[in-house]
């Protein structure tokens, strides 16, 4: 499982935790998140995230 960080605000998407509040179940892999999902903290697009080392 990997983590991805929002390059704008630093929010980290953790595949283990998902983003259940916004309809992304725990364990959802990055590739499987719809392109319409956006950063829950600042609103930027999925494309504005980068993979980070855990």
């Amino acid at each position, binding site marked *: 499982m990997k983590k991805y960080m929002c*390059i*704008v*605000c630093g929010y980290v998407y953790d595949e283990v935790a998902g983003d259940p509040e916004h309809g992304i179940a725990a364990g959802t892999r990055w590739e499987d998140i719809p392109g*319409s999902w956006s950063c829950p903290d*600042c*609103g930027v*697009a999925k494309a*504005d995230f980068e993979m980070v080392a855990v």
Partner: protein
Amino acid sequence: MKPVVILGSGLAGISVVRELRKLDAARPVIIVTLDDGGFYSKPNLSNALASGKSAVQLALTPREGLAAQLKAEIRPHTRVTHLLPAESAIETDGGRIEYEKLVLALGAQPLRLPIEGDGAAAVLAVNNLADYAVFRDRLEGRQRVAILGAGLIGCEFANDLRIAGIEVDVFDLAPQPLGRLLPPRAAEFFRRKLEAAGVRFHFDTSIARIDRLGDGFRLTDKQGGSHAADLVLSAVGLKPETTLAQAAGLKVGRGIVVDRRLASADFPEVFALGDCAEVGGAGGLVLPFVLPIMAAARALAKTLAGTPTDVAYPAMPVVVKTPACPTAVCPPPAGVQGAWREEPTADGVKALFEDAAGRPVGFALTGSAAAERQALGASMPAWL
């Protein structure tokens, strides 16, 4: 090969280079900035207390790392003094630089109210990480903060300070918070939620003088009312940085006027984006927010890499970071005639701005209604 020169290392300047590097790895790039040249997230400044972060922890990428990542030369603590577009050059306090393309990402400056008294000079404004470090330093051990301005940034700081247990008084000339963004019922709901969190609002009130009192301040409003504070923060708005552009003969309105290609009319090698720019020609859009900056950075990177590309703005709702009252606003496009229709929800207010034909073209969502932000945002007409 002459470099692409970027003026400013805020979100706008850095995002353009980040996007450019996805398309062109080799192009020489120089970033000139008054800051220390590291990357931080400005929106995090107004919720750092809640997230338990110090000013130091807010610095996401230090300069050396950023320069390596972006394959760019970053010149920190350097002031640009003149733009010389006729010579494809700029002058800085560290020398002259010639460019192939110039990107103005100079941001905006906090407005200052004319205030009398010997405490007026000590009023702080927070518009970058260095300002924030000073603010946190002065906040150390203090109990009571006065905020001038109940707009987006004033309200966010007010909520954040309350979370840290600090007393907050917010003053505004307007009769309600977020005056330019919320219609009356949504504003009323928002005000009550922030008051329940302990924020003390003083509306229809403008501060005329600030005097030093002990190691704090006494604020006097125009009606003669007197208020005490340990620290005064001003958040009354921003003015796009246009002075350099104007002096160089570039077209300037509220911001630096550029077309949809983000290029200046008279000097097509000069571009502008971010808080300093007025996009779409004279009378165009000045949108000092993250999402428009990301959209502009992507389009401009393509243009710089050789594929001229117009920026397109979908409707971009702004999230107000006030945990006491989740709020999202999508202002109607400028100049559209219409009216607000406000309707209460379970624990909130949903307000739609409808145009003359009854179509919703903007919204303001507070409390439980804020959850509809994404769905509603996707149905709004594009801005540009």
